[in-house]
């Protein structure tokens, strides 16, 4: 079973990972975006860890909803509402249970990813965070490690794609050959699940 502590560790690990990789995320966002993904995500996840410490929500659902709300209000770029919606919708789907199963987390994350796709209008293959998240959720039934590997693979596989959503889509064919920064940060978020678990 996954308790509130697990979800707290997940968010803390995600924040640490975004901190470590912020420069790389911004570098990836430079040729095809506006070179702020790393700093935006860093600001957002630092705010998440701060608010979780301050308000100390005690259920998995409440933790993710608070984290999502914080991302929406602090990131400043499109990743704010997108990641915010991902976590809030996942948190809502988990309800107010004190502990959830891995299956429940998988289904909740699926609802979160569906909400992201509805919000941004992106489908798999559009060179967005969806390309890491969809395969990750599909593999989550196996293990967190499998989900993380699938997310990494999905992120790398965005390199040859032409962007069809977001600012990068204005570049047309020139977006080809660059790994998508949003898919890359999504893979970090999924990798943080492994860190949070005892696997």
């Amino acid at each position, binding site marked *: 079973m996954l308790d509130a502590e697990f979800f707290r560790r997940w968010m803390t690990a995600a924040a640490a990972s975004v901190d470590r990789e912020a420069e790389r995320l911004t570098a990836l966002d430079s040729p095809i975006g506006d070179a702020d993904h790393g700093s935006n995500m860093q600001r957002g996840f630092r705010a998440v860890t701060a608010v979780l410490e301050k308000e100390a929500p005690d259920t998995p659902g409440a933790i993710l909803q608070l984290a999502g709300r914080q991302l*929406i*209000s602090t990131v*400043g*770029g*499109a*990743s*704010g*509402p997108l990641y915010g919606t991902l976590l*809030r919708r996942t948190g809502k789907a988990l309800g107010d249970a004190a502990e959830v199963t891995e299956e429940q987390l998988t289904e909740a994350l699926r609802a979160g990813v569906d909400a992201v796709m509805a*919000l941004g209008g992106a489908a798999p293959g559009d060179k967005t965070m969806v390309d890491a998240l969809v395969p990750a959720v599909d593999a989550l039934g196996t293990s967190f490690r499998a989900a993380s590997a699938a997310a990494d693979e999905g992120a790398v596989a965005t390199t040859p794609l032409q962007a069809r959503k977001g600012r990068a889509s204005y570049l047309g064919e020139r977006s080809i050959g660059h790994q998508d920064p949003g898919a890359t940060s999504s893979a970090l978020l999924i990798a943080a699940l492994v860190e949070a678990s005892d696997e």
Partner: protein
Amino acid sequence: MSETEEKLVGIVLVSHSAAVAESVAALARALAGGGTTAPVAPAGGTVDGGFGTSSELVSAAAAAVDRGAGVAVLMDLGSAVLTVKALLAEGDELPENTRLVDAPFVEGAVAAVVTASTGADLAAVEAAAMEAYSYRKQ
């Protein structure tokens, strides 16, 4: 505040740039002419003055123009659109009867403010702003 003014639909203009949001608000107010002008609030850029979208500025602007007749929110692109949609999806951070209006930013803002200033309801304001898409320049 007069009784008519209280019934006017409020307009929020969300842009990645504070200067753009403020200028478009000023332009729309100017083109709405004399007499009573509908409440308009810009929500541009981030809280620290950078380019981007701030959900806090959007929520504050919506609260500031809410007179109980509904609030029409127009925005430029990308994170501005996504932020408004995310706020609307949550349901508790914007005034009741707040609507995302799918319209060209400048032309739609002018149409919305002019229409709202006549005392038109939210649906009519939205329709006027959306109609701006059909105004071809060539």
